[in-house]
């Protein structure tokens, strides 16, 4: 990367420190102070403002949810009305809340389908488009289009396909399948719509990664007699490690975030339970079970933490190398 024209040392360090004048701090130790007062203020603000935002908008609500999950509160009145009830909400979630088990199963299923179907498909499309076949721009646009739409809108669009009485699929096949109402079907219908969207996203990320792979690597592999498939799996795929990790993380995030689509379909009931919809169903509404909903939210937080920890572990190990 470095070319001979560029200095090897950053300019400010290369300069000799002025012995006097504005830089009064430079004394015996010959330390260079590179920041002026204004710079310091700027740096402090740049650190402080995002920190405040993160703490105020992410950490505080998260901690509040965890705390509220040990209480019983209907959302009315001051915090003084909050009654602490220990782990009762959690006991209820696990033993006395029928939608919870299917919700966990559906979240897992979501994750698996994203991993096994959406991600490989996205990779495949990316590789194909990277080959710059004829009309690849058209395919690229077509595949990426769904990503631009919100999942809620995707729900409406697919209802045009799925509707029992008026949908395209039933009209073409001459069937009367109740795609959104029948729990045997609706989770798969929702998953299909989600994959339709997710594939384009994965494809785009991979395409960016593929463009970054040094062409000489592939060339070298081919010189050594590797075929296309071998080149991809033995050379390109391992080289794209950073992209792989990003895609992995995004897949996990998208599976846990799964919410909008099923909420639009039937508010996450009757075969479409997800932890996120249960949280919403308990907290949003006329008389909220804030404590119970918070317990569900905390469980979701714990699940996400598992994945976040794995990710951080991988990334940090990477840095140590």
């Amino acid at each position: 990367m470095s070319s001979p024209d560029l200095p090897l040392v950053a300019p400010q360090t290369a300069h000799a420190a002025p012995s006097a004048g504005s830089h009064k701090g430079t004394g015996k130790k010959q330390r260079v102070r590179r920041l002026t007062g204004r710079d310091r203020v700027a740096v402090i603000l740049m650190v402080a403002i995002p920190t405040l935002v993160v703490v105020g908008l992410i950490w505080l609500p998260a901690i509040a949810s965890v705390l509220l999950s040990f209480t019983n509160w209907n959302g009315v009145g001051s915090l003084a009305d909050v009654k602490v009830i220990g782990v009762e909400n959690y006991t209820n979630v696990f033993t006395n809340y029928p939608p919870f088990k299917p919700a966990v199963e559906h979240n897992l299923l979501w994750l698996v389908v994203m991993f096994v179907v959406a991600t490989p498909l996205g990779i495949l499309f990316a590789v194909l488009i990277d080959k710059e076949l004829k009309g690849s721009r058209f395919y690229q646009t077509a595949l990426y289009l769904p990503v631009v739409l919100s999942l809620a809108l995707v729900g409406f669009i697919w209802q045009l396909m799925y509707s029992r009485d008026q949908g395209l699929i039933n009209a073409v096949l001459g069937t009367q399948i109740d795609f959104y109402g029948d729990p045997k079907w609706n989770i798969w219908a929702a998953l299909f719509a989600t994959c339709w969207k997710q594939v384009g996203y994965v494809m785009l990320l991979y395409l960016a990664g593929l463009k970054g792979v040094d062409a000489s690597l592939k060339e070298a592999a081919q010189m050594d007699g590797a075929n296309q498939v071998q080149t991809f799996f033995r050379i390109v795929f391992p080289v794209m490690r950073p992209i792989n990790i990003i895609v992995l993380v995004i897949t996990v995030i998208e599976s846990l975030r799964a919410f909008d689509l099923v909420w639009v379909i039937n508010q996450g009931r009757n075969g479409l339970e997800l932890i996120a919809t249960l949280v919403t169903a308990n907290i949003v509404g006329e008389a909220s079970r804030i404590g119970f909903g918070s317990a569900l939210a905390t469980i979701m937080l714990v699940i996400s933490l598992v994945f976040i920890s794995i990710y951080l572990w991988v990334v940090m190990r990477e840095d140590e190398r």
Partner: protein
Amino acid sequence: MNRPATESEYLASLVPASAGRQGFSRRNVLRGSLLAAGIPALLAACGGGGGNSGSGGGGGQVTLGSNFSDEVPLKTMKAMVEDAQKKQGISIKLNTVDHTTFQNNINNYLQGSPDDVFSWFAGYRMQFFAAQGLASDISDIWGSIGANYTDAFKKASTGEDGKQYFVPTTYGPWAVFYRKSLWQEKGYQAPKTLDEMKTLATQMQKDGLVPLAFADKEGWPAMGTFDQLNMRINGYQFHVDLMAGKEAWTDQKVKTVFDTWKGLLPFHQTDSLGRTWQEAATGVVNKTSGMMVIGSFIGQQFEEADQEDIDFFNFPEVDSAVGADAVEAPIDGFMMSKRPRNEDGAKKLLEYFGSPDDGVVQTTNDPSGIAANTKSDQSHYTELQKKCAEFVASAKSISQFMDRDTRPDFASTVMIPSLQSFIQNPNDIDGLCTQIENQKKSIFTS
């Protein structure tokens, strides 16, 4: 036939219709779909009828928060506001919010800076918010309007502390609705007992009809069927006690209700969990379904020309010892928020809502409701309205509706999933009842 003519009409039919009870306008397509897409508050504000001049409050203006957001109810609301301004000499600012959004935000709304007067429902749902101190005692207004109402309505407007918090305006009974012309053509007779209803349903199946149009995508329509069966099998008082958490859901009486319902399910329209009540009602309108257990708001689904063709009969008797004189008729009306900025104006407005004039304005503009006010002139009523009014007047007891007679958190987080799972799998009634009872205990004792 029921295939929509335009794409927008079709899209409109997909909007989650939990706002259903107020009917649904196929024309509010864009707003509807965007609302569901999750930008509710913003757009709901745009839906405001009386003009959102921003500054609000003060200056003798009364603010009125309304969830009557669909076409017919909104038009009705505007007419009421106009009439109230004229009659009471007050200036009213109407803030319309999308029906579902209003309901979902009611907690925050009432704790924030609510409008002086707001629309709401009678019964437990009203009592719940009154008990939390989120509404004002309006017993003094009842002193002047009380004579316009029957005792049943006063009871439905009274909080747990014996004070009044609610002014009822209209109501609509639940019953079994059908199309007169179809029944004449086929020679059907309204059944008096459940067995007769089954016989009739069997005949309808032979005639190629779906006997009972049915939908439960929104989760609440099935509650109506449960309520009807429960009141016919176990009586009104048991309904009240069960909803108040005083009776056990594991009681054999409740199991009998589910068991009877199970016997009726083969006559219900299949795939109900993917269908909204409007879609099911279309079957009655199109004469492909024979009848439907629903509220009188089904009238909103009929064309103007077909209004005279709607008819209904009381949900038939199951047990002759219990009879069939309990009727379900949810009441809508208005309440005053806890600290109105313009209390005098707010009270004047509520007095108007409690006056016979309001009933006339409301029932003329929206013929799917009946005036709660007994002094309201009924001469302009349609056949259906007249029949509904008589029907409720002759009832011995009037219930509200499952989600209005019990705790809202219990109704939405326990009963909706439970009833849906019953419809899906009607065979494990024991297990279902145990699950409901366990959850009920944890909610009611908290």
